[in-house]
């Protein structure tokens, strides 16, 4: 399959089952909502080292938030509800409670819940109060700029993490430009995040290492500087490979995001140095979800 001179490899991305939650962060204006959310989603690129994968899903107008203020929607993904819940509480406590004018609300509802303000409330040292509005309980924690309003809990759901595709280009600049175009298109897709810096990762990994202590190490088959000394996947004209990793609330969201991203990259085409689109997998043996590139783009 070739689109605008870009070869689409006959391969697939391999993804895993995860747990996901969504929270809505609001503040006095979008700038401060973003400050709070960016802090909350910082150091959250991979569950391997960060415990959680998180990102800003979308910006919300004041009319779309519970308290009528500008906000952002944040998605967080963990390998288990326990791990996700621990990260969520830590991040609410350290990044949202501390952020001026912020408030946080549940973005998912259901029977399965994680603590949002249930324990954070004790920061109020006895001065905290709760309000039951409808079926939902909110905690009002006195802080120095007024009150930190925090819903008691948020729902979580089964989700999918690790959808991906690789962009192979003739230069680092052109690979990055293609990634930027892809990410811009993918940010329009709801229910997904791309958790790495700017949505892009350069250190694609394989499972295991020559060093026993390491669970993952560089994927030498896609490292352009090792083309002459490994079983490379790269042709001589490829100088840079960048990966986009996608976490989604369900597999169809990941499919939509992959399609949007790959199409945006291919729109630049071979004339802008984009030569191939590939994907990372583990031979299909580890992940429950397989996203075949050619099926997605068919």
């Amino acid at each position, binding site marked *: 399959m070739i689109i605008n001179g870009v070869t689409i490899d006959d391969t697939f991305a391999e993804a895993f089952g995860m747990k996901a939650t969504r929270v809505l962060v609001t503040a006095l204006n979008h700038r401060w909502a973003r400050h709070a959310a960016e802090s909350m989603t910082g150091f959250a690129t991979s569950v391997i080292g960060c415990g959680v994968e998180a990102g800003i899903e979308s910006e919300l107008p004041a009319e779309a938030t519970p308290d009528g203020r500008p906000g952002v929607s944040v998605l967080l993904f963990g390998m288990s509800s326990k791990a996700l819940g621990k990260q969520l509480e830590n991040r609410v406590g350290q990044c949202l409670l501390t952020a001026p004018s912020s408030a946080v609300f549940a973005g998912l509802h259901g029977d399965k819940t994680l603590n949002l303000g249930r324990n954070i409330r004790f920061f109020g040292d006895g001065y905290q109060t709760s*309000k039951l509005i409808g079926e939902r309980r909110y905690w*009002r924690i006195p802080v120095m700029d*007024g009150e930190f*309003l925090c819903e008691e809990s948020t729902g979580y759901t089964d989700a999918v993490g690790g959808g991906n595709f690789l962009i192979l280009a003739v230069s680092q600049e052109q690979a990055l430009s293609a990634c930027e175009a892809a990410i811009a298109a993918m940010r329009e897709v709801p229910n997904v995040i791309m958790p790495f810096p700017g949505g892009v990762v350069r250190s694609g990994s394989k499972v295991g290492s020559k060093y026993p202590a390491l669970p993952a190490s560089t994927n030498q088959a896609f490292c352009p500087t090792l083309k002459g000394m490994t079983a490379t996947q790269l042709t001589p004209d490829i100088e840079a490979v960048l990966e986009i990793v996608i976490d989604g609330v369900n597999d169809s969201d990941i499919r939509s995001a992959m399609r949007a991203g790959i199409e945006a990259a291919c729109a630049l085409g071979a004339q802008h140095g984009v030569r191939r689109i590939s994907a990372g997998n583990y031979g299909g043996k580890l992940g429950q979800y397989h996203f075949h590139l050619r099926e997605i783009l068919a």
Partner: protein
Amino acid sequence: MTALTLSLRDEPVHRIDLSAVRPDRLSGATPEKIARLGLSCGNRRMQVGELFEITGEDPQDLVIRNSCARLDAIGAGMETGRIRVYGNTGDYLGMGMRGGNIEVHGDSGHWTASGMHNGMIHLRGSCGDFAGAAIPGDHRGMRGGTLLVTGNAGDRTGDRMRRGYILIEGDTGDYCGARMVAGTIAVLGKVGIAAGYGMRRGTLLFRQLPPSLPATLNDCGEHRLGFLHLLLDSFADLDSRFSRLDKGQLRVRRYAGDLACDGKGELLVWVR
């Protein structure tokens, strides 16, 4: 099916306890069986058919016409269904109600919504004293649900209230929210003296500052409180002035108290 309609023939001499006539208890009953239902009337028993003319057949949609202030405990303990009352009602309207909907086109007596757990009472008139309050011997008053009063409420509204909403479009009497444990009382009209006396938790939201406050409610200054937006949003579906309140006017003066009783309650007064 048409609504089951009970039209009061004549105003009774004694007070009638109507708690047995409620939608969930009448489910499946024929009009004939309903007519034979016994009611307490003073120190004797009367049948529903003696007091009311019965038409219609759907007990889940119960209509009481020509109602008067001697009909007590309408909808008391009801769990499902709807009751519409045309005329005034007696005491204990919706007492201990656990679900469903009561709409009254008239006034109600004392102890309206006392011990209410859930559901909605829309009183398109005024109510007497102790609305949503605990009856003597009960630890708690209203424990959930919503009481919406288009007119005025008497004294001791929400006394010992535990949870839920009491929304008064008109005025309230003295001791509004006294000994309140939690919940929300909002009043758009005037409020009498000693509001919030002995309250432990909960929110009193007033459009006007009462003429005097207990000395143990302390002024905490003016604030913009985020939860008020959510609170007013939750009123959006009500057929009431509460659904049309300007959420832009969210600045309130906060009085914390009653400091003699834990002090975690608050009296909020709209700042114009």
